[in-house]
């Protein structure tokens, strides 16, 4: 095997080392340029609240956990969590039936209570609708809404089949208006439902009398004072008694509603879908609509309520689609709808139509969310754990460094530099992955990084032991490096592949924070391969040319005498002839 080589193979260690240097500089440059210099820390290191919600269909319904229904749940919870106003809170699906909610910084019970409730869907007739800000009585000087946000306009739609949209695209006007004025004017948030095969809608009837007077005083007061422009008011999670009137904000904060008791339950609307509108002759108009289907009970209820609403004038001819205590849409009704399918039309885009259909579908089969695992980590505990992790890392690194130097001598320095490079790369990637894929480093992740110190060092051991074996055989160091590398790199690749496989399986199998462990383990295995190939080997190749290493200095770790290398031998041919071998002839590479 050795006899076939005619000379050392030309490798380019300098190039590989330069490449590594460039990569490191590039990564750190990006870090400083974008301002992200520390990795995102998870709840258990920064303090905060984290809840894992497990979804289950509500008993007695035929709900199933599907990716769609889970996505809807995630949206609902995100709405709730965003209302807390905390940056970097995160709501994410985990696995097929879990949702993980992390809110750094806050660790109070309210957060936990907020996220766990089941979101229910109701259709409630609208009694009054107004600007989102707190209202003033007529005669007082109008003041702007609490946070100065724009309010919906009161312009009447141009045609009876108004093409006005649900709350999402209301236009601002800038002034709050007194309560009584609103009850007679038409708000912009209106859309006209039309049943599938009915004649064009007729004129609206005068407003019904008496409904306003039945509202309890506290509800009326709430209607006056509620400020829907603040995020806290739009947190949702407030499933008021469906049998009583209530006040609700529009989901996007552009209007405030006073609502009658629920007329139709969301569970009686089994399906809904977003479809393209077609005009009478079958021509596609390019507008979107939402078609909903009702079951028997739903059809009955809906028929009754639309009969009543159709007689009223706006806003009392609207019914609000209320999800999780927030009004998602408030279409107008212009006639009684008897059939089991109804359409909602308006200025829907494809996205908004699909959003509304999703809401209706989810409301049909709400999932019960149970809090499977919740953690509230105080900031001090988080700090302690971070401190502990760093200390463990420092100690671990120190121990490995000491051992490497003692056992491997000068080679130990190569191992140390390689570890340093690996650490630099890992840190930079951990920092940059935060903004890129939302990677947060938690305690388990830190543990993974520390364990990987050992695994990375192991790759060096494999290579160095191989080197030493080659030197024991009597090769010169240069030859030993090239020859030994061919063998060692296969072992390193195989072993790292096994580690990576294990980390990948772990990642998919772990639940909760320990996923971080699997992730960092896998990441560091990849970095290990890169470092061994692009840094350690080229460095050793370069060092083999120096006298300290190449000549086998006592402390270099490659001293043939210390390694017990056999005295240099001679080729077979000479022995056969019986000529004694000169004591120290150089063996060919």
């Amino acid at each position, binding site marked *: 095997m050795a006899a076939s080589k005619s000379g050392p193979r030309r490798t380019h260690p300098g190039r590989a080392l330069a490449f590594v240097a460039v990569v490191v500089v590039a990564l750190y440059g990006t870090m400083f340029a974008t301002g992200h210099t520390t990795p995102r820390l998870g709840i258990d290191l920064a303090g905060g609240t984290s809840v894992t919600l497990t979804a289950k269909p509500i008993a007695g319904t035929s709900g199933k956990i599907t990716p769609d229904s889970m996505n809807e749940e995630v949206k609902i919870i995100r709405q709730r969590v965003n209302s807390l106003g905390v940056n970097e809170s995160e709501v994410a699906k985990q696995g097929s039936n879990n949702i993980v909610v992390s809110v750094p910084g806050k660790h109070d019970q309210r957060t936990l209570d907020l996220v766990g409730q089941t979101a229910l869907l109701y259709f409630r007739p609208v009694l009054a609708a107004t600007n989102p800000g707190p209202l003033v009585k007529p005669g007082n000087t109008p003041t702007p809404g609490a946070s100065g946000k724009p309010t919906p306009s009161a312009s009447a739609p141009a045609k009876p089949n108004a093409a006005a949209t649900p709350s999402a695209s209301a236009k601002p006007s800038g002034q709050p208006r007194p309560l009584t004025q609103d009850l007679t004017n038409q708000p912009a948030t209106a859309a006209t439902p039309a049943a599938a095969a009915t004649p064009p809608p007729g004129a609206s009837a005068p407003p019904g009398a008496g409904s306003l007077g039945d509202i309890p005083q506290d509800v009326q007061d709430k209607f006056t004072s509620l400020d829907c422009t603040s995020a806290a008011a739009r947190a949702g999670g407030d499933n008021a008694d469906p049998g009583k009137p209530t006040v609700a904000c529009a989901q996007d904060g552009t209007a405030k509603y006073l609502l009658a008791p629920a007329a139709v339950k969301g569970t009686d609307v089994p399906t809904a879908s977003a479809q393209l509108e077609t005009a009478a002759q079958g021509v596609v108009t390019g507008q979107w609509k939402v078609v909903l289907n009702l079951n028997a009970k739903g059809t009955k209820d809906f028929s009754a309520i639309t009969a009543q609403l159709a007689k009223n004038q706006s806003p009392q001819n609207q019914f609000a689609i209320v999800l999780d205590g927030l009004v998602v849409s408030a279409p107008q009704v212009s006639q009684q709808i008897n059939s089991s399918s109804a359409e909602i039309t308006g200025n829907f885009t494809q996205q908004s139509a699909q959003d509304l259909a999703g809401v209706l579908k989810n409301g049909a089969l709400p999932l019960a969310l149970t809090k499977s695992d919740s953690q509230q980590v105080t900031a001090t505990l988080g700090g302690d754990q971070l401190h502990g992790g760093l200390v463990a890392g420092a100690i671990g690194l120190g121990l490995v460094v000491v051992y490497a130097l003692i056992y491997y001598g000068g080679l130990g320095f190569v191992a140390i530099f390689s570890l340093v490079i690996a650490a630099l790369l890992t840190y930079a990637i951990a920092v940059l992955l935060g903004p890129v894929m939302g990677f947060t480093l938690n305690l388990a992740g830190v543990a993974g990084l520390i364990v990987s110190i050992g695994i990375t060092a192991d790759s060096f051991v494999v290579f160095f032991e191989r080197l030493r074996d080659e030197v024991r055989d009597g090769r010169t160091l240069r030859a030993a490096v090239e020859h030994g590398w061919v063998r060692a790199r296969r072992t390193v690749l195989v072993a790292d592949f096994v580690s990576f496989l294990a980390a990948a399986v772990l990642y998919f*199998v772990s639940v909760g924070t320990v996923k971080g462990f699997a992730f960092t383990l896998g990441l560091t295995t990849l970095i290990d391969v890169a470092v061994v190939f692009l840094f350690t080997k080229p460095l050793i190749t370069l060092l083999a040319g120096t006298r300290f290493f190449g000549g086998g200095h006592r402390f270099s770790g490659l001293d043939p005498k210390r390694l017990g290398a056999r005295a240099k031998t001679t080729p077979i041919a000479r022995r056969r002839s*019986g000529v004694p071998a000169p004591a120290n002839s150089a063996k060919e590479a």
Partner: protein
Amino acid sequence: MSRAGNFGARLYRGDVSYDFVGRRWLWYGISIAVIVISLISLGARGLHLSIDFKGGAVYSVKAPGASVAQATDALSGVPGVVDPIVQKVGDQTLRIEIGDVASQGSKSDEIKKALGQKLHVAPDNIGAQVVGPSWGNEISQKALLGLLIFLGLVVLYLSIAFEWKMALAAMVALVHDLVITVGVYSLVGFEVSPATVIGVLTILGYSLYDTVVVYDKVKENTRNLAGGARMTYSQAANLAVNQTLIRSINTSLIALLPIAALLFVGAGLLHAGVLKDLALALFIGIAAGTYSSIFIATPLAATLKEREPAMKALARRVAARQQAEGRKKAAPVEPSGQDLDEGQAEPAAVRAGAGAANGAGGSASAGRAQSARPRPKSRNRPSGKKRR
């Protein structure tokens, strides 16, 4: 260091050889005994599960000067709290474990308020972890699934990279590690949490890594074995284990050092939690994994391989050759070509091949660590070259 280096050299050349493969029945016996003890302990004592598996709540209060009695007192006032376990962790923190706390917000709130009042700590400064009862199930199911997937992938991969007999032996070694680790947890009563489970699964990856390092060398040594008559598969495998002994010990030591640091900090500074659970599982498991790679996986693979007809024939040829050499010892002769044949091939395999073939009675008796092999022929070599 030179002694260690020399030792490594002698292992490498086969001058020193511990008979791992030859004494396999001893190792099997030890392992079976340990496994039986583990299984008995699992059956009798079971595992001490953390609240992640049982469901319940854990509160931690950093209140220097607070006492266990005070906390217990505070909790007795909260209805529905039965048998809280209160411990002092470190000198500043109290850890309160309550089973069966429904994850309803109000109950947990009450508990925190009661604790806060009595211990003069704001409820917001009390850390809490509340786990529902079915969470643990989810973790266990996924862990089991992961285990099965991993074992399947391992067998597949090893069968391709090496061969299925070696894959089977490696699998047995992995299962062995698993049972022993779980047994230790059961015997000593360490707490099992999801971090422990992940640590145990990581061990499997690590043990496999270790086994692959040895298998790589075995493959190298046994590559062209069947055609010759130098040594049996078992001898070659044993040589491989010896040659990688230093490497195995080193890699295990180096891997254990950071884990020891984690354990020290996790158990010492932080007293509980993810770091300690992971580190403990890894520590025990890596020790078990190293043991099994050397003492179980390779000998078992050798046992399986030796049943092959090609290997059996090889064993016969090697035995025959040893008999022939034994006869030749009696008569002093010129060195035959066979010595020189051995001169230039794989140095490691050769040295040990010569050593093993020389040991009377084949592999089983090479258990004596020999530092100087009797080589009567060398005295007759005209070149006067010393052969160690």
